[in-house]
């Protein structure tokens, strides 16, 4: 009898536990669902402008004029895209910007590595001075006009090089790379040093191969910066042939020089202008939207490295 009672009691206890657990998990599940719904809502806010843009770029003029296009294209067609693709000025800007982005990214990555690598050697004399030279530039900027006058003095105004050279090293990105380099065990390079490898060889054979994640991250940062940047061209370039895509887009959106910029007659009819603008905006941003999700795990790490100070 006594035993049975005990067993019963234990069963009861287990049951009670189970019940409390299910109640708890029901409550947590409900909260989880609330959080999930909030996240869906946030994602929708991020995506709706892009979906709307895509819908407009694929819609027929009639529906756009009647304001009937929301998130789903109506009168589905690729007319806007084909007129964008047949516009020489636009394609030219696209290719030029892609070329610029490639050159800038390669050059910037090289410069960043050249700057970050020597600074991790504690035995390097003058390391403190180099660090001070670098840090000051982070806190104090001479300003827009002094920079402009420098470009003028260097004869860089209206020179395509002005879109490449002045922005070829970002101190913030250099610090990210340096933090990453610090994370590579010293023993690796010390054993190479003992084996008689030169510092240059250590960089090429140890540091660069191990730094692919940070190189990918910084390549993304530099490429996005160049692809999206327009203020340097706005300030330093007058020659429209060298306008990067974003500046061209800015002028199109603001109807500046629209006769010159858009060769199609389409820009005079409101509906078509709408779908054309949507198609151009869509096209100017697609390269980056296709790349960044694949680099997500790298750039998350990169951002975190940048936030960690020494």
């Amino acid at each position, binding site marked *: 009898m006594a035993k049975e009672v005990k067993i019963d009691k234990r069963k009861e206890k287990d049951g009670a536990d189970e019940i409390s657990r299910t109640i708890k998990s029901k409550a*947590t599940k409900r909260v*989880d669902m609330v*959080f999930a719904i*909030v*996240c*869906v809502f946030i*994602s929708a*806010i*991020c995506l*709706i*402008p892009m979906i*709307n*843009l895509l819908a*407009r770029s694929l819609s027929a003029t009639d529906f756009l004029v009647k*304001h009937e296009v*929301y998130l789903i294209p109506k009168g589905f067609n690729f007319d806007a895209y084909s007129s964008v693709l047949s516009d020489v000025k636009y394609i030219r800007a696209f290719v030029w910007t892609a070329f610029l982005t490639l050159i800038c990214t390669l050059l910037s990555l090289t*410069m960043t590595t*050249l*700057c970050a*690598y*020597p600074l991790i*050697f*504690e*035995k390097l*004399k003058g390391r403190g001075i*180099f660090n001070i*030279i*670098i840090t000051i530039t982070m806190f*104090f*900027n*001479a*300003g*827009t*006009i*002094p920079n402009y*006058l*420098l470009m003028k003095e260097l004869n860089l105004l209206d020179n395509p090089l002005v879109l490449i*050279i*002045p922005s070829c*090293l970002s101190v913030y990105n250099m610090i990210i790379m340096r933090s990453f380099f610090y994370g590579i065990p010293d023993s690796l390079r010390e054993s190479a040093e003992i084996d008689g490898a030169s*510092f240059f060889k250590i960089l090429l054979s140890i540091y660069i191969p191990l730094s692919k994640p940070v190189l990918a991250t910084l390549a993304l940062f530099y490429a*996005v910066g160049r692809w*999206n*940047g*327009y*203020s340097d061209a*706005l*300030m330093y370039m007058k020659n429209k042939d060298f306008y990067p895509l974003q500046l061209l*887009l*800015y002028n199109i*959106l603001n109807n500046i020089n629209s006769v010159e910029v858009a060769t199609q007659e389409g820009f005079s009819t409101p509906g078509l202008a709408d779908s054309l603008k*949507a198609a151009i*905006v869509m096209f100017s941003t697609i390269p*980056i939207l296709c790349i960044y999700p694949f680099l*997500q795990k790298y750039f*998350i790490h990169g*951002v*975190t490295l940048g*936030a960690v*100070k020494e």
Partner: protein
Amino acid sequence: MSAQEKKTKAPKQKVNWKVYIKRYWQLYALLLLPMVYLLIFKYIPMKYILIAFKKYSIVKPINEMPWAANHGMQYFIQAFSNNDFKNALRNTVVLNLLDLVIGFPIPIIFALILNELPFKRFKKTVQTIAYMPHFLSWVIIYGLAIQLFTPTNGLINMFIERMGGEAIHFLDDPVKWVGTYIFLGVWQSFGWNSIVYLAAIAGISPELYEAASVDGANRFEKMWHITLPGIRGTIVTLLVMALGNILGSGFDRPFALQNNLVMRYAEVISTFVYKHGIKGLQFSLTTAVGLFQSVVGVFFLLFANWLARKLGERGIW
């Protein structure tokens, strides 16, 4: 390097320079290009700051330009009696403060919510989507804003009108434009800014949560008493940076989003300098304005850092 290390190393400081250079010259060679770059593009422009105190002349070199009136302070006096500049200064501060008050907490809240999500794949998808706006240029965001916010033709207003409401002038009414500007700023950056907080949350020891569970804390209590204190340092550091930048203004965002109808509230220092300096050729005046902005910015940063340390956090250096 700790003090002890220094002491032990100090007596051996006799360097054989020949051997040292032979071993280390490569590092200096590697540093040469970046240092030349910094010197030319970051330090040489500083000499042009003198223009703020001089009467700019296009034909003379800087040291031959005559000093400005009022002991060289003429252009600063001129700037502060210029209504356009005072307007731009006020707008810069107000827009930055609004950005701070509204934009600063949102990434923290978003990170807290994401951290609570139990569905891994869903969480990753939400993150990818939330990072997307950060990769759009401000020109493109402006293009998106036109498609969303213009009266009669914009998505939001089409919807409002269909529901029988009246179109809202998001982009051409100055006060509403400020709202749009702030919204777009938050929209662009909240996901990206949450990365740092998520990393900080990931660094909190799981034992703390287990101990709290044993004590019977529910998830909101855990959020409040463990997660938030756990990322306090990160929050303070980022707040310091934001406070230090209260007078700073990027160029791309305000320039892309502003239009003539809202200039009263949309003109900020950076766009003022562009329009009056590079377009208007008032080099001395705008250099003075830029110098004022840089110097005050440095002081703000020093002050904010001091404040962070006062609060018991590490600050940014």
